[in-house]
């Protein structure tokens, strides 16, 4: 089951350049929350702060509090532990190129020392089914490389890989921006399916996508959270002029 995320006064920097300013918001459990905003507004940096990926960048620095469920991720736990609870899907599909489809999905468990073959087989099948990829790859699981799939399939493979470690939160950083409309629709259907079990945070450039999949939407601009509300309200009756300008296409 998913858990809620509480962010309080989050600041983030690259070196001396501050990219996030005092972000505070509550992301509810078992819903999809979309983050929109123009390029460079900090929405990607923000999701990367939720699983401590931001600090894998040599100059990345973070201040503030992020609670995932009851855990204060910058105080109570090591990054490795957090990332097992908070899965991530990246903008460009990034399957491990030298691994088979099966190995890709099993990698998170296997490389963390999980060895039970029978259970692994089950988890791989379940994760691929969950990611709506099973039917397309079940005959080539061990024969084909993850890199041999199409872009859309690769992205679903990456989703399956993230799901296999059974996270509580799934962060998606523009998961469909490199995909064609058919693959995009599949990913969106998937988000719809998955949010009953996971808390989903999705960064997107595509406002229709946000409107389709997310219960709540946050609008970022220049490193600040301008507005965060129920998706319907953001798109029909935004409380801030800047939000309105953005969603009506007046800039960005």
């Amino acid at each position, binding site marked *: 089951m998913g858990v809620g995320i509480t962010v309080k006064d989050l600041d983030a920097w690259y070196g001396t350049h501050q990219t996030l300013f005092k972000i505070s918001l509550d992301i509810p459990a078992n819903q999809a929350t979309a983050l929109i905003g123009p390029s460079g507004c900090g929405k990607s940096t923000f999701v990367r702060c939720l*699983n401590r990926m931001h600090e*894998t960048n040599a100059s990345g620095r973070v201040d503030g509090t992020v609670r995932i469920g009851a855990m204060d991720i910058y105080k109570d736990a090591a990054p490795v532990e957090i990332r097992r609870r908070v899965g991530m899907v990246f903008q460009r599909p*990034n399957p*491990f190129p030298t691994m088979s489809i099966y190995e890709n999905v099993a990698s998170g468990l296997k490389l963390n020392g999980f060895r039970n073959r029978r259970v692994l087989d089950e988890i791989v099948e379940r994760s691929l089914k969950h990611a709506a990829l099973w039917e397309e790859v079940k005959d080539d699981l061990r024969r084909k490389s993850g*890199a041999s799939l199409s872009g859309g399939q690769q992205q679903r493979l990456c989703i399956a890989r993230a799901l296999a470690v059974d996270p509580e939160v799934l962060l998606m950083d523009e998961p469909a921006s490199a995909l064609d409309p058919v693959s995009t629709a599949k990913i969106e259907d998937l988000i719809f399916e998955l949010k009953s079990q996971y808390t989903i945070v999705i960064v997107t450039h595509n406002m229709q996508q946000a409107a389709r999949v997310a219960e709540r939407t946050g609008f970022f601009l220049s490193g600040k959270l301008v507005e965060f509300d129920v998706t319907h309200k953001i798109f029909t009756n935004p409380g801030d002029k800047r939000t309105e300008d953005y969603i009506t296409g007046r800039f960005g």
Partner: protein
Amino acid sequence: MEQQLPRSNNSTTRNLVDHVATGLAVLSTILVVTPLVAIFAYLLFKGASSLNLAFFTQVPKPVGEVGGGMANAILGSGIILAIASLMGVPVGIAAGIYLAEFGRNTRFANVVRFTADVLNGVPSIVMGIAVYSLIVLPQKHFSAFSGGVALGIMMIPTITRTTEEMLVMVPNSVREAALGLGLPNWRSVLSITLRTASPGVITGCMLAFARVAGETAPLLFTAFGNSFWSTNLNQPIAALPLQIYIYAISPYDDWHRLAWAGALVLILLIVVSVALVRYVASRGTLKGAA
């Protein structure tokens, strides 16, 4: 409204230029490959006639006796190269991992890179003398072990630099995917990044191996050579390049023939071992793997 690209060249000159360029490329390729083929053909021509079963089963005959073989030198080369690889491959790969994944832009890493490049350029005879004073002199005897160490040290810089280059070429998105799954950094480096780069890393190891397999100079003061059977790592040991060298500068026709045969066998052994490693490494390759 139709806009056309400027057509300054008519198609005849364009085709002509195309043909000339292609011709030059083919010519260069032939120029590069010809010496290689010529050497191999000449070796086959000179060496093959002296190859027989005795060459692979017998040790050298005393001066004046006809016949004999290089069985001890083939085995000796195998032993020395095994020691060299056991030493050079792990150290070289580990150093390459350090440079690419951990040290990257540190001062220390730059010093290591510079040192490796200099080490790569050190004449091999100097390497022999260095190991001679570090190992042979204190031990007071030549040995197979010291020969292996000399060749092992020579393998390190090549392996280190190629490993580093191959790892740097692995896209960052692959590292992020691994870390995003909650893998510790060391696990991500060994099981994901290194594995992704492995075809190139293996090529680097094979290059280093092939290069030192033919080295004579570093063995002169270390493995020294031996006319008899020896598998003792603490004793002088025969090696193919050494044996070829000794036979080639001798005044006897019979020894000259054996030297040609030895050179042929040396090249064949290198080709076979490189092909074998490639085959084993590629067996795990999947359909459509990058």
